[in-house]
C-alpha cells in the first residue's frame, strides 16, 4: 500500500479510537462542569500531538516491527529450526528443546515493554507525584523485567501444556504475601503496572508468539493454549515492582546503617 494511504488509514482508525473519549470529555466539560479549561490552546495542541504521534507510532510498528517479529516468532517455533532441517521430529517433545523460544520471549518482553507508551506515561506521573522518590526509569525497568520473566514462563506453560489457572493462583498467592511486606507507597503502583504493560506494542507480538507455539507443538490447540501469555505479562510485573521496592528499601537501609557506623 502507498505510504500516504496507509497514514490516512491509520490516522482515521486512531481518530475512531479517540472520538468516544473526546466526546465524553467534551460533553462533561460543556454540559456538567461548565468551566473553562486552563491553557486551552496547549491542551488542544497536546491532543493533536497525541493523535498524530499515535498514528505514526502504530503505522511504523505495522510497517516495520510487527511483520518481522511475527516471522521471527514463527521461525523460532518451527520444528525444522528446533531439530534441524533433516532430522526427524520427535513425537514427544521435551521442554528443553525450546530454549531459544524462552530467550526470545524474555528479550522481546523486556524490549517491547520498555517502549510501551502507556507505561512511559504512568512512570512520568509516578515520578512527578512522588516527588522523585519513585524513579520513572527504575519503575519501567522493574515492570519490563516482570513482563520478560512472565512471558518466558508463559511459553514454558504452553510447551508443557500445564494448566493456566494453577500458575495464576500461585502468582496471586505470591502477590498477596509480597503486599504484606512491600513498602506501602509502591503497592497501588505495582497493582496498576500489571494492567499498563500490555497494550499497543506488546500484545500483537505476544499473540503471534503464543499462536506460533501452540500451533506447532503436537497436542496443543492454538485456540485454547494460544491464549494466556498476556495474563502472565500482567501478573508478573506486580511481583517485580514490589520486589524492586523491597530491594531498594533494603539497600537504602543498609546504606543508612553504614553511614551511621561511619559517623560513629
Amino acid at each position, binding site marked *: 500500500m502507498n*505510504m500516504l494511504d496507509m497514514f490516512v488509514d491509520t490516522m482515521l*482508525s486512531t481518530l*475512531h*479510537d479517540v472520538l*468516544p*473519549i473526546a466526546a*465524553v*470529555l467534551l460533553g462533561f466539560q460543556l454540559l456538567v*462542569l461548565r*468551566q473553562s479549561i486552563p491553557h486551552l490552546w496547549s*491542551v*488542544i495542541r*497536546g*491532543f493533536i*500531538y*497525541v*493523535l*498524530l*504521534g*499515535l498514528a*505514526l*507510532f502504530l*503505522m*511504523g*510498528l505495522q*510497517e*516495520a*516491527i510487527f511483520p*518481522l517479529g511475527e*516471522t*521471527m516468532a514463527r*521461525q*523460532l517455533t518451527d520444528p525444522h529450526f528446533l531439530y534441524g532441517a533433516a532430522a526427524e521430529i520427535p513425537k514427544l517433545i521435551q521442554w528443553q528443546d525450546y530454549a531459544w523460544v524462552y530467550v*526470545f520471549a524474555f*528479550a522481546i518482553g523486556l524490549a*517491547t515493554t520498555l*517502549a510501551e*507508551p*502507556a507505561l512511559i*506515561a*504512568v512512570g512520568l*506521573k509516578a515520578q512527578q507525584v512522588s516527588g522523585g522518590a*519513585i524513579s520513572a526509569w527504575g519503575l519501567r525497568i522493574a515492570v519490563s523485567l516482570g513482563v520478560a520473566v512472565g512471558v518466558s514462563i508463559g511459553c514454558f506453560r504452553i510447551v508443557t501444556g500445564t494448566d*493456566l*489457572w494453577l500458575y*495464576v493462583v500461585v502468582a*496471586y498467592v505470591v*502477590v498477596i504475601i509480597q503486599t504484606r511486606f512491600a513498602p506501602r*507507597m509502591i503497592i*497501588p503502583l505495582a*497493582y*496498576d503496572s500489571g*494492567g499498563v504493560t500490555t*497494550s*499497543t506494542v506488546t*500484545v500483537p507480538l505476544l499473540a503471534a508468539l503464543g499462536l506460533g507455539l501452540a500451533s506447532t507443538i503436537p497436542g496443543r490447540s492454538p*485456540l485454547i*493454549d494460544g*491464549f*494466556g501469555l498476556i495474563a502472565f505479562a500482567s501478573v508478573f510485573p506486580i511481583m517485580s515492582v514490589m520486589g524492586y521496592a523491597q530491594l531498594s528499601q533494603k539497600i537504602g537501609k543498609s546504606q543508612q546503617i553504614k553511614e551511621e557506623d561511619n559517623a560513629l
Partner: protein
Amino acid sequence: MWNRFRNAVKPLLNAVRDLTPIIVVILFFQGVVLKQPIPNLDELLAGLLFVLIGLALFIRGLEIGLFPLGEAMAHAFAKKGNVFWLLLFAFLLGFGTTVAEPALIAVAGKAAEVAAQSGAIKHSEMAMADYAFGLRMTVALSVGTAIVLGVLRILFGWPLHLCIMAGYLLVVVITYFAPEEIIGIAYDSGGVTTSTITVPLVTALGVGLATSIRGRNPVLDGFGLIAFASLLPMIFVMLYGVIIS
C-alpha cells in the same frame, strides 16, 4: 528559542533510548540465532523512523494535553462535589474507551471461534457474531464498573490491597465454575482492555482526585484505577461464560 529546541529534541532522544532494545533484540535473533538477513531493510528503517517520531510526539502531547486536562477535570469534579456526575463520567470513560478498542474486537472474534469449536455455541456466523458482541459489551461494562469502583475507593479511602485481594479471591472461585475454554480468554482480557490513551487519562483522573480531596495521598490513593480495570474484566468474562453455557 533554546527552550523550544530542547523541548523538541529531548523527547526524540528519549524515544531513541526507548526503542534501542527492540532493535538490538531483532538484530541479535535475526543475525545470530536464525542466521538470516533482514528483509526489506529500507522499509524497516522508514518504519522505525515513524515509530520514533510518533513516540516523541505522543509523549509531548501527553505532557501538555492529556495530563493537564485529566487533572483539571478531576479538580473541577472535586470542587463541584456532585458524586453522581463524577461516577457517570468515570463509567463512560471506562465504557467508551473499551467498547471501540481494536485489540478487544480482535480477541472477541477469536474467542467466538473457540466457543464454536468447543460446542458451547452453534457454529454459525450469526451465533459467533452474537457471542463476540456480547463478550465485547461484557468487557466494556466491566471496565466502566471498574473505574466507578476505583473512584469510589478514592472517595471513601478504602485500602486498595483489600479490594484487590477480594477480587483475586473472586477470580479463583469463579475459575472453578467457568467453562474451560473461556478461562484463557478471560485472563487475557484483563490485560487487553487498557489502551494507550485510556491509561494516561485514567491515571490523571485518579491522581487529580486524590490531590484535590482532603486527607488523600496522591501516591497512595491516586493510583489503582488501572488495577481495577484489569481485574474486573476477568471476573465479568468468566461470568459471561458461565451464563452462556
